[in-house]
């Protein structure tokens, strides 16, 4: 796991090329503290910071082929590198190292741009092919590893994280108003847009190619589902047979993710998914597994009893860290430095603390359960959409209120709420059944309620911009032919997953402490297989992830195997308003700073702050707004407000 950066073209700066590259990689050295390397030649510059995991002694980057015509920098892992290597050797390639990097290099020599099709892994890489005078950027299918780019002065710059791009003289950090509107509607900007104006991310499953004449971006993979009425070759296939094949795939996906020359641990949240991963790992590798978890003070969020149950059941050696409410606020500025975007939830902060624990215990790699909720339909939003469709088609059903209450058993605030209000909120929403965003409209509508805080100037600039229309426009042509559950899964898997779960709650907070997360549920073979599983086997009545539970039921304690989904949540506004809240909160939300940044209405922010301070029960919308405003203001202070006057003088250290 590593950080990569570089340029293609002629940088318009007085900085020597090497100094520029060193500054870029220096900004993301947390991604690769073990080693650095660079390659400069004419209009190409590549630099790499390494976290050594496979073949630590070799595998140095940038890596080139034997005649030094093809150069590679690579962040991530190719999990099937052993099989690929064997094939390449059979085709006559000679290997100097045992690294997956060299496998990728030769695979590119063999297949060119199509090499990505053969890869099973989490990767972002850059290949410079001097024979073709062509640069290639590629990113893994699900979006585990990040890759950003921008153009400045006719030169293309690229890097794992935006902060490396901001080291380039002239590249400015300016908030993109549309990105803010999208964040306050969806929780994230719609890729390739980022929070930074004119800085883009390469979308998951895409490659970018650049020659001196032109640049183009294209998809090499995309998530697709069968037509709703088409069972295809799976017609009549039994649940047991599907569960059996699922199990085999999951075992292999986990097996190849245990390939590493350093020890691999596992996150254990206490939920079903991470428990499955730990149990499968134990099955494959019977040695004592190391597991890690985060706990909370409040029972509303804490899952330690379930964690302990799994620790006992699997006999793992377990470490945990308690994330207190005050810790979340304390870590939050650092978290935003790493997420590089405003966020509406604090949930990344405890994971930031957890990766620190893992790092201190000497681990660089952890397996983790993310992805199961998207791939096997575990989130409440899927059940909620199913219920809303049911209610919309049978408005007078007496079952209706009962169903809604069953949906959210873990939310204490909902317990004393009337049936009718819940039903009105989720059921009588007037959303058109054929709206492609039907499943997500209640969530997006609540989230968009946070936009009342946007400043008049920003609203004026946004004019009649419609984020929902923007998302609808980006959906594939065959989307409407899929089953409603598949449509909802697509929205979660291609949007929230890469843009929030895998980045703000994933790569960015784990790599902050040089820890690499690996996600067996996101093996693309498993994702493609699950896409074909009939929806009724994913959610059986209201039992989410039914087929997944069936496939591994012998591996887990019954309590855990039957556990209802409890979403991972952390305390929100109370972290910043309760006793022990850090000083920066008042400064960040002061009238002066709010008006100086110009994104929000200062009066409204003061009202919200006062409300959150005095109120015991803050509603969902207000919590999101509060966290969104704090994080946007922190983002501004960390990135935009520094005016980014990059020094062009060279320090003595850099000249050496």
């Amino acid at each position, binding site marked *: 796991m590593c950080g990569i950066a570089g340029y293609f073209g002629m940088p318009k700066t007085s900085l020597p090329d090497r100094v520029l590259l060193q500054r870029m990689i220096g900004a993301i050295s947390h991604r690769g503290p073990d080693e650095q390397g660079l390659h400069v030649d004419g209009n190409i510059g590549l630099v790499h910071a390494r976290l050594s995991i496979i073949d630590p002694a070799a595998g140095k980057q940038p890596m080139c082929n034997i005649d030094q015509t093809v150069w590679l920098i690579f962040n991530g892992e190719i999990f099937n590198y052993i099989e690929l290597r064997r094939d390449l050797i059979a085709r006559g390639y000679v290997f100097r190292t045992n690294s997956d990097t060299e496998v990728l290099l030769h695979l590119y020599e063999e297949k060119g741009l199509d090499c990505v099709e053969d890869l099973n892994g989490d990767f972002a890489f850059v290949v410079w092919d001097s024979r073709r005078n062509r640069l290639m950027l590629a990113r893994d299918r699900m979006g585990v590893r990040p890759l950003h780019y921008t153009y400045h002065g006719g030169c293309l710059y690229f890097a794992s994280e935006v902060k490396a791009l901001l080291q380039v003289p002239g590249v400015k950090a300016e908030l993109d108003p549309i990105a803010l509107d999208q964040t306050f509607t969806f929780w994230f900007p719609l890729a390739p847009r980022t929070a930074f104006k004119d800085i883009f991310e390469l979308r998951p499953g895409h490659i970018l190619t650049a020659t001196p004449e032109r640049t183009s971006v294209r998809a090499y993979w995309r998530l697709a589902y069968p037509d709703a009425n088409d069972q295809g070759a799976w017609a009549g296939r039994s649940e047991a047979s599907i569960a059996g094949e699922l199990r085999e795939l999951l075992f292999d996906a986990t097996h190849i993710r245990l390939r590493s020359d350093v020890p691999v641990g596992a996150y254990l949240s206490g939920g079903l998914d991470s428990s499955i991963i730990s149990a499968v790992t134990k099955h494959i590798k019977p040695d004592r597994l190391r597991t890690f978890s985060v706990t909370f003070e409040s029972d509303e969020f804490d899952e330690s009893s379930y964690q302990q149950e799994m620790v006992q059941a699997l006999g793992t050696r377990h470490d945990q860290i308690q994330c207190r409410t005050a810790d979340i606020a304390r870590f939050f500025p650092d978290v935003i430095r790493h997420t590089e975007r405003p966020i509406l939830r604090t949930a990344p902060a405890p994971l930031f603390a957890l990766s620190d624990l893992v790092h201190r215990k000497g681990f660089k790699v952890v397996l983790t359960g993310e992805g199961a909720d998207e791939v096997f339909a575990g989130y409440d939003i899927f059940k909620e959409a199913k219920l809303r469709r049911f209610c919309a088609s049978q408005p007078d059903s007496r079952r209706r209120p009962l169903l809604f209450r069953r949906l959210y058993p873990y*939310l204490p605030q909902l317990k004393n709420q009337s049936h*009718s209000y819940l039903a*009105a*909120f989720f059921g009588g929403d007037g959303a058109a059944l054929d709206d492609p965003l039907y499943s997500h409209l209640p969530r997006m509508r609540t989230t968009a309620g946070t936009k*009342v805080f946007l400043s008049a100037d920003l609203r004026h600039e946004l004019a009649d911009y419609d984020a929902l229309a923007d998302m609808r426009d980006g959906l594939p042509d065959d989307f409407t032919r899929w089953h409603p559950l598949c449509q909802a899964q697509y929205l979660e898997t291609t949007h929230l997953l890469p843009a929030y779960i895998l980045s703000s709650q994933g790569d960015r907070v784990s790599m902050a402490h040089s820890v690499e997360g690996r996600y067996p549920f996101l093996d693309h073979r498993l994702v493609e297989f699950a896409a074909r599983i009939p929806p009724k086997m994913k959610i059986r009545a209201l039992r989410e992830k039914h087929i997944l539970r069936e496939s591994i039921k012998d591996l887990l304690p019954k309590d855990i195997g039957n556990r209802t989904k409890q979403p991972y949540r952390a305390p929100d506004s109370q972290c910043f308003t309760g006793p022990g809240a850090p000083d920066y909160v008042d400064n960040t939300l002061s009238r002066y700073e709010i008006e100086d940044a110009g994104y929000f209405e200062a*009066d409204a922010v003061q009202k919200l702050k006062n409300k959150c301070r005095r109120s015991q029960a803050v*509603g969902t919308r207000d919590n999101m707004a509060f966290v969104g405003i704090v994080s946007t203001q922190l983002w501004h202070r960390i990135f935009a407000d520094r005016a980014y006057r990059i020094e062009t003088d060279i320090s003595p250290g850099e000249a050496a």
Partner: protein
Amino acid sequence: MPHDLEIIIRNFIVDNFLFSNDQDSLSDKESLLEGGLIDSTGVLELVAFLETEVGIEIADAEIIPENLDSIESIATYAKSKLAQAAA
């Protein structure tokens, strides 16, 4: 009092859900739910306000959109509760 009641309710809603200084930024009949101003948790804040500031007691069964979804419906509902209590 009834006149003041509408103003008190309006001030509360505009202040707490719209976060605005402009008391006319919301019409009497506008749906709070559809406008994204109140979600299923936010309604509890409204209930707490009506119980403590307006002084009415609200039964669980009365927490329904028919009673609480606009300034007008809240005022009508609160007035009838106050009348009941006075009777």
